[in-house]
């Protein structure tokens, strides 16, 4: 029986899919299991241990599930659809061969409790990745275990704390953090049992040496620096900064979020840093996957190496590898096993594909792309210290606000209508109406030119019809969301009707 009210003509991809809980019908199956072909056996589970009510799941067939999630996918912006100029996020192309490799039998189907003899090829690959990351960053030792950049920060803070405790300095618990830093930095310090201390930076986000000299002392555990900083500017005084902090007895942590700008040009280890974390899902091309999983390995100096969590992958004289778990090292366990191994394999594939020369080219073209965009947009989006920007820049939309009454948020939302993801906005906090743009090296000149044309078109719209920006986006599957309502009356799980039977 048909019901004509159920259908109406519309644009392709218009309309949101219903909840999966309203789909299907009792009795449908999307997954069946091999029949038990042994002798019958009774399950040994007393009734009192069983759940009273089965979990209310909907019942869908495989084609219905495929269609549901395919329809959902059509609502997403993604790298293969268009540009993602998100500052500090390094949204570069994710090579497909990496996915093939991580899924190979003999890699994807390894169990973490297998004997070490079963995983020799894997350990060789992970060791090669460790060594490659050490070469890229100029360090002696690497831990691949942190499952994300934030966990890398935490582990980095943890090993610095462990060093000071080992040296009999529990009072060294203050970590200096410039006010331009990402919010994870202070949160990581606190969770590692230390105290963050904000360091006011200069207007260009660079460290103020006088403020630094005044801030360090016998309680200083270290400093966390993002270099290049969140404005895309290199800390030109880094050697002196390192000397001041080291002289005071502290250690230097580098947030490697912006490593994509400097590969083969400068290395954190050579600048005087003691620890760096890398985001494999940024610099080394592993997919963001709508929010994860990524990976955040850290590299450290020989002094900090003993405090890295076990197990350590150790090469034997016979070409084999062992997993060493010396006493005490377990105390730094931050993951059930060895972190996001599948992500690490993808990153190694990328490094092998690029090679040393290729990685240098990556950074060169990432910087060239940012500088080209900047050169074509700075008349309408001014950028401080423009001639020193590396892979990203932070423009100020303050003139748009004053002249046209449109905010940076409106610019970002209107870009969505032009098929471009919004840049990072209102970060870092030290730039008014900040608009942070990082094109990455995988955008072509034509793609950059389209972005430039879009921004200029939006600038004209702002002058002639600012309401178009205020109401943007207009062409997306949904408009601006009522975020206040979402937070005030949280609806966090489907409680509506369920075709659960």
């Amino acid at each position: 029986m048909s019901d004509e009210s159920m259908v109406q003509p519309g644009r392709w991809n218009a309309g949101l899919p219903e909840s999966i809980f309203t789909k299907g019908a009792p009795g449908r199956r999307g997954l069946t299991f091999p029949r038990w072909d042994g002798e019958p056996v009774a399950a040994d589970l007393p009734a009192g241990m069983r759940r009273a009510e089965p979990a209310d799941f909907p019942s869908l067939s495989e084609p219905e599930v495929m269609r549901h999630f395919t329809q959902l996918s059509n609502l997403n912006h993604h790298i293969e659809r268009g540009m993602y100029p998100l500052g500090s996020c390094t949204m570069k192309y994710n090579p497909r061969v990496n996915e093939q490799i991580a899924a190979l039998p003999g890699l994807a189907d390894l169990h973490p409790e297998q004997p070490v003899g079963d995983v020799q090829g894997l350990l060789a690959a992970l060791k090669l990745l460790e060594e490659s990351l050490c070469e890229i960053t100029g360090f002696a030792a690497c831990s691949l275990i942190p499952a994300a950049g934030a966990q890398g920060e935490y582990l980095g803070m943890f090993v610095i704390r462990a060093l000071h405790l080992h040296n009999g300095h529990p009072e060294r618990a203050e970590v200096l953090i410039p006010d331009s830093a990402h919010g994870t930095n202070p949160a990581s310090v606190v969770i590692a049992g230390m105290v963050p201390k904000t360091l006011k930076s200069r207007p260009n986000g660079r460290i103020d040496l006088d403020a630094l000299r005044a801030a360090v002392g016998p309680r200083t555990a270290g400093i966390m620096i993002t270099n290049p900083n969140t404005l895309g500017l290199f800390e030109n005084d880094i050697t002196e900064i390192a000397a001041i902090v080291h002289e005071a007895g502290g250690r230097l942590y580098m947030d490697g979020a912006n490593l994509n700008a400097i590969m083969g040009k400068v290395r954190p280890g050579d600048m005087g840093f003691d620890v760096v974390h890398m985001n494999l899902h940024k610099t080394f091309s592993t997919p963001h996957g709508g929010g994860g999983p990524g990976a955040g390995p850290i590299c450290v100096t020989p002094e900090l190496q003993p405090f890295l969590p076990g197990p350590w992958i150790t090469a034997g004289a016979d070409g084999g590898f062992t997993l060493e778990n010396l006493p005490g090292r377990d105390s730094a366990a931050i993951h059930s096993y060895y972190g996001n191994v599948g992500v690490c394999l993808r990153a190694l594939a990328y490094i092998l594909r690029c090679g040393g020369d290729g990685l240098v080219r990556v950074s060169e073209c990432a910087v060239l792309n940012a500088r080209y965009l900047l050169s074509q947009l700075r008349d309408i989006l001014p950028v401080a210290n423009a001639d020193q920007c590396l892979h990203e820049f932070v423009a100020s939309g303050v003139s748009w606000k004053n002249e046209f009454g449109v905010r940076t948020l409106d610019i970002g939302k209107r870009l969505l209508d032009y098929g471009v993801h919004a840049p990072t906005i209102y970060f870092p906090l030290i730039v008014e109406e900040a608009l942070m743009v990082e094109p990455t090296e995988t955008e072509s000149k034509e793609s950059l030119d389209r972005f430039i044309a879009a921004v200029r078109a939006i600038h004209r719209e702002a002058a002639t019809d600012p309401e178009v920006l205020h109401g943007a986006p207009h062409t997306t599957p949904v408009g601006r969301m009522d975020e206040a309502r979402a937070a005030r009356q949280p609806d966090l799980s489907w409680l509506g009707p369920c075709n659960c039977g």
Partner: protein
Amino acid sequence: MPYIPHAPGDIRAMLDAVGAADISDLFAHLPAEVRLRRPLDLPAGLSEEEVRRYFRKAAARNHGQGELVSFLGGGVYDSIIPAAVDALVSRSEFLTAYTPYQPEVSQGTLQAIYEWQSFVCRLTGLPVANASMYDGATALAEALSVALAAGRRKTVIVPQTLNPRYARVVRTMLGGEGITVKEAPVGPEGTTDPEALRALVDGDVAAVALQNPNYLGLVEPVDVLSGVVKGAGAQLVAVVNPVSLSVLKAPGEYGADLAVGEAQPFGIPTSWGGPLLGFLACSDAHKRRIPGRIVGRTEDSRGNMGYVLTLQTREQHIRREKATSNICSNQGLNALKATIYLGLLGKEGLDALGEANLTRIAALRRRVRDVPGAGLPFPGPVFNETVVRVPGDAAAFLAFARERGVLAGIPLQDVPGCTAGDFLVAVTEKRTAAEIDEFGGLLEAFLAGAGKGA
């Protein structure tokens, strides 16, 4: 370099626009004293085929669960992965999308996370769940932090029957905050001793973790233990294998305040233990306290229902040093895999999955009982894992079985309540009757050989 589009002509044109003669000029302002004056000491770049060859060779040196027969578990399982899962998650719309901070162009990711949260709530019997955590171990540590943040008490209790890998992570992550971590002892039956727990739960205990089934595979007396915990005014944090919630009592049914666990068996490869999929659910009282991303349903400017990241004032990018967690990602793609898996599984499939595990572990235990010399030191009810005991050292049997292509289990010699002869054996819906019989046959062969002094 096929990943970089720039032709020489493009570079020239762009440099001209910038006003630079050469690409190296863009780096000329970097301080001389820190410049790398040599090429990176890495091999030259390879073609895609050469990269694939390197990894094929590396993979060929490994021996995975596809080649062997695996009875390994302990939180990560050799489960069936339906083809539809990989087909859907390899769509670039999911794979290459960023965190859904722009909801207008991220409704696919957002609705999928909301549906994941909904599935987790239904499984655990709790009203709130987040978008995911790195793994079960970090999810537990974070849940204990939530319970600690809810009051002034400064002690948490973890049972000796907790996965030791989880216990280690808890000790690291709670170690920096002046928190005491105590252990509740295991009783002779391999489960947590309620009376010993009662003696430990004093007025400073903020939370007690309870793993069910526990690390030894045994179903804990959850109602009794929950009563002890609640009676002392502490929070109960359940650590559960979500597959077991097909049949076992849900955390919400026995009064858990928070529930965490590892959802890898829902369509995610074991991948040497990562990336995994931690989940975290909680009572309504904790919803503004839990870490991680949360998706909520709301309305847009055009009156459509849609989804957004919400309750963000909990998170580090707003609260900075006042945040209780520094987590700033979620295991997005793995949560998507699990959501697709659960969508395929459905209500009847969930029941079938639970019964398939119960049948296979019962068959394995029956087979072990028939082997002279082998034993089941803890015969209480289990879901999909059991401890098996051999005389002497379990490592000798595990090596014997491995030589014959079987990953027979995880040694337990350092686990409280266990002996050197104990090991943990897991089944999943994937194990066949023949494989389970082979496991018994290996035990027989090993013990017969050992009896002859072989």
